[in-house]
């Protein structure tokens, strides 16, 4: 498998995982504090509320797409490249998309956190 296909696969994993992550984060922001909700509605009320959120379900679909693209990409290249590359690039992609789509306040401190963690995860492959 060519390098281009391998990095295409890694890109697909990063995009699908990031979309899945931000959709789920958006869904949980809409639903609100699960701890407080459990006190009011009970555990089954919380489960029903989460499962009936369309963004949460769409997020699950994208997480599944990310997982299966990861499995396929792993069959094209070494796990020592694919694993850390997808994990560290997903940290950076999430910070970018969270700022735009989730309107999160991604200040310098959070950027440094994302970059240090992404770098550290990449080093774990060595």
């Amino acid at each position, binding site marked *: 498998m060519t390098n281009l296909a391998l990095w295409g696969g890694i890109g697909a994993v990063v995009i699908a995982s990031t979309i899945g*992550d*931000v959709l*789920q*984060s958006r869904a*949980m*922001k*809409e*639903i*609100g*504090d*699960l*701890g*407080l909700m459990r006190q009011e509605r009970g555990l089954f009320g919380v489960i029903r509320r*989460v499962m009936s959120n369309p963004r949460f379900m769409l997020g699950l679909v994208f997480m599944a797409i990310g997982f299966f693209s990861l499995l396929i990409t792993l069959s094209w290249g070494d796990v020592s490249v694919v694993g850390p590359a997808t994990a560290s690039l997903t*940290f950076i992609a*999430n*910070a970018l998309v*969270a*700022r735009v789509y*989730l*309107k*999160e*306040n*991604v*200040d310098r*401190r*959070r950027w*440094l*956190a*994302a*970059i*240090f*963690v992404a*770098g*550290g*995860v*990449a*080093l*774990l492959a*060595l």
Partner: protein
Amino acid sequence: MTVRKYIVLFAVAAFAACGDVSLSRGMKVVGAVTLAGLPSLFTALLNPWVVLGILLLIGFFISYLTALSWADLTYVLPGTAVSYILTVSLAKFFLHEHVSVWRWLGVALITIGVGFVATGPEATPGAHRHNRDAGREAVTLADAGSEA
């Protein structure tokens, strides 16, 4: 942040690390899975370590969603990267794997990254349903400040 919230964040990291290590230990017993031997994936489900790993990862998902319900994604993801540190430590002391100097350096970088995010606020004001009022209040105060 309350103690309960720190416990939830630590649970995210601990469930993820213990789940991965448990699955890894189970799959080492089951052996490599090939496309031709796909049915062996089902026998993997009979391995107690694999079952424990799946239960722990369900615990991870529940605590992860709970954390996202009151904290930003850009806080939860780097904040719970403690799981990588736990995984390397468990791999070293529980699975007796060799951990290179580069991996320990990676652990050091992750620790610094977690330190950066952990010292800041966990949520953007007004981003979560239960703190929408806090967001409006922050905007009003900012407006009042700019008018003054």
